């Protein structure tokens, strides 16, 4: 597929009209009806056409007996009928000239039977013969908050600059909910399922050329034309980072892949070399995926791997330093000039002026924190900053630590946006629901203000290490 054709995939994400083949009159169970319900609820502004030969009205919408009976050719058709009825539905689409189709229905190659494979081959053959663009089968299809196309994924969702290509609707659901709640919005997500017609390289090519997408997050289990994906990714990564979560690395995982999307996972050693050669950023779980996307979405580029650690407690300083080194980053000694700026306000006993900066005052007095940050921003050996923050209730001997200081901190960091990547950690995942709430509120507040905040130092460092490696590789092209 050439880029000219790739552009047309945009039609999936901003249709002015959608027909749904396979809606029941009563049931609101998962399928055509539940999609219609969610689109209505999301305030989808286009025209919705339920297709049901026996109904006159579905969910308050006028129902039509067939695509032929519609007053227009729908921009998008969703097919949610039984698997064996899908080929006829596709032929009907082609007959009326509807070319963009999402097949929700499962029961194709992923069920592992000759019938399933045969049915999928027929679907692909019809698509080829009649020039149809099909997402699926066995998938949740397109998602786009800007178009109120949010029948799944984070609901109501948040419009943003992230593009998502995924072989799992479930994983994408969690991912979009997670990252939207932190203020990083999604431009478009495609859940591609068995990818019998349109595959991940098609959507990669589309998102590469889509000016609304800055960062591409991919969940893949398998790929048909790995070579095309490889060649495309090599061209895309210098301009738009690709953060890829690859499922099916273990033998057990790979076996599960074939029953999930009917495909083969491929050799993990080969995928490793794909990441090496293309500069794709690999992650191994949902948390790393979100963490990296936060960093890549929000941070200015980094010019090196020197981390300045601001926090309190000797033990934390040691553990945090270890985490940096383990991740391939450095904790450089500050210059004499920086030390000269920090030393005056750091007590000699009970604190350590240096890197890490172990000084409780940074939790309590914003001016101390800001002076330390200013010193770090002007110190050539420092390239990134991690600031540890506490939830007020666990700042055990400092009852005057209140969350009021956060607004000022956010303002300070925002005013120095182009300085050096600066992230925060607010570390609580124990069982006290009140502390959990306080911790997640603080993190979300930072993130929504454009400052990545992580629930552990290790997760912050994992994201920064990936960000640094990307910036090192692509240099001037990276960051914002």
């Amino acid at each position, binding site marked *: 597929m050439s880029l000219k054709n790739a552009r047309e995939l945009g039609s999936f994400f901003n249709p002015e009209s959608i027909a749904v083949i396979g809606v029941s009159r009563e049931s609101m169970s998962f399928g055509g009806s539940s999609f219609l319900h969610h689109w209505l609820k999301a305030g989808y502004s286009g025209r919705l056409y339920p297709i049901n030969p026996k109904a006159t009205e579905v969910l308050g919408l006028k129902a039509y007996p067939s695509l032929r009976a519609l007053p227009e050719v729908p921009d998008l058709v969703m097919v949610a009928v039984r698997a064996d009825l899908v080929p006829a539905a596709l032929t009907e689409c082609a007959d009326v000239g509807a070319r963009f189709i999402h097949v929700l229905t499962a029961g194709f190659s992923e069920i592992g039977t000759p019938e399933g494979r045969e049915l999928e081959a027929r679907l692909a053959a019809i698509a080829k013969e009649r020039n149809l663009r099909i997402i699926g089968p066995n998938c949740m299809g397109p998602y786009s908050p800007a178009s109120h196309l949010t029948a799944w994924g984070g609901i109501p969702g948040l419009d943003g600059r992230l593009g998502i290509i995924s072989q799992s609707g479930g994983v994408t659901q969690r991912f979009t909910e997670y990252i939207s709640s932190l203020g990083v919005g999604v431009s478009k997500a495609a859940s591609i399922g068995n990818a019998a017609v349109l595959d991940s390289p098609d959507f990669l090519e589309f998102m590469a050329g889509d000016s609304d997408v800055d960062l591409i997050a991919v969940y893949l289990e*398998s*790929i*048909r*034309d*790995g*070579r095309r994906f*490889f060649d495309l990714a090599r061209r895309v990564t210098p301009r738009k980072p690709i953060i890829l979560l690859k499922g099916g690395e273990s033998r057990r995982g790979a076996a599960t892949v074939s029953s999930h999307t009917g495909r*083969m996972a*491929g*050799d993990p*050693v*080969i995928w*490793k*070399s*794909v990441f*090496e*050669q293309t500069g794709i950023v690999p992650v191994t779980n949902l948390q790393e995926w979100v963490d990296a996307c936060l960093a890549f979405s929000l941070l200015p580029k980094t010019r090196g791997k020197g981390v300045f650690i601001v926090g309190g407690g000797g033990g934390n300083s040691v553990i945090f330093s270890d985490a940096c080194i383990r991740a391939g980053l450095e904790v450089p000694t500050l210059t004499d000039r920086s030390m000269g700026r920090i030393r005056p306000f750091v007590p000699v006993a009970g604190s350590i002026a240096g890197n890490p900066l172990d000084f409780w005052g940074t939790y309590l007095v914003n001016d101390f924190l800001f002076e330390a940050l200013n010193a770090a921003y002007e110190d050539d050996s420092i390239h990134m900053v991690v600031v540890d923050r506490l939830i007020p209730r666990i700042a055990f001997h400092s009852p005057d630590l209140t969350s009021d200081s956060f607004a000022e901190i956010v303002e300070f960091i925002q005013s120095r946006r182009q300085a050096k990547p600066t992230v925060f950690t607010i570390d609580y995942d124990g069982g006290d629901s009140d502390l959990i709430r306080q911790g997640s509120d603080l993190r979300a507040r930072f993130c929504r203000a454009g400052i990545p905040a992580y629930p552990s130092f290790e997760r912050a460092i994992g994201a920064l290490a990936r960000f640094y490696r990307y910036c090192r590789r692509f240099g001037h092209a990276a960051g914002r």
Partner: protein
Amino acid sequence: MLKKEVKAIFEKSRKWGWVLEPDAQKILSLYGFKTPKFGVAATEGEAVAAARKIGYPVVAKIVSPAVVHKSDVKGVVVGIKDDETLVRTLARLSKIDGFAGMLIAEMVKGLELIVGAKNDFQFGPMILLGMGGVGVEIYKDVSLRMAPLKTRDADHMIQELAARKLLTGYRGSEPVNLNALKKTIVAFSHLMMDMRDVVESVDLNPVMCTAKSCIVADARIMLKK
């Protein structure tokens, strides 16, 4: 584009699915790879003449469409120093299934590496670099990249090997010619791209590396079914 001679070799090899070593060596030398001097003999007279021309010591190997893994049938004899041993070896090898001749080659020394290629079902031609001998079997000390490669890729592959110190000189051993090795890897990746429609996998094993050069001492080319 494949050279005409190479196409002819693939055509003739199709009936047993892989390329016999003398033909594989021929392909490699056509593409500029360094290979050992060799001859193929079916009779005592031919064998002795070939060995004397190359110069003892030599290595003798079975050539048979029925034998893909030569060492499994004791079809490789190294360090043959005289006519008598050579003739005895020929007598034994000629009894092996499918005997089509005995390849007599110059003995080459050096650090043993494996350079391989595989046509992956999803990604196409991949190039492998690994330590030869027990290194590849026990330590799985290999590095993999998609073909075609640039010198920079070949360099990264070498850096990725756990045993890279053996290449750069360890405890007084002479470092191998890394430029020659990189050139070999890069050229091989291009050859694999050219052959990808017909070839399933290739093993250059071993590639003998010294301070001077890299010589492909054995090659097996498996064709696509």
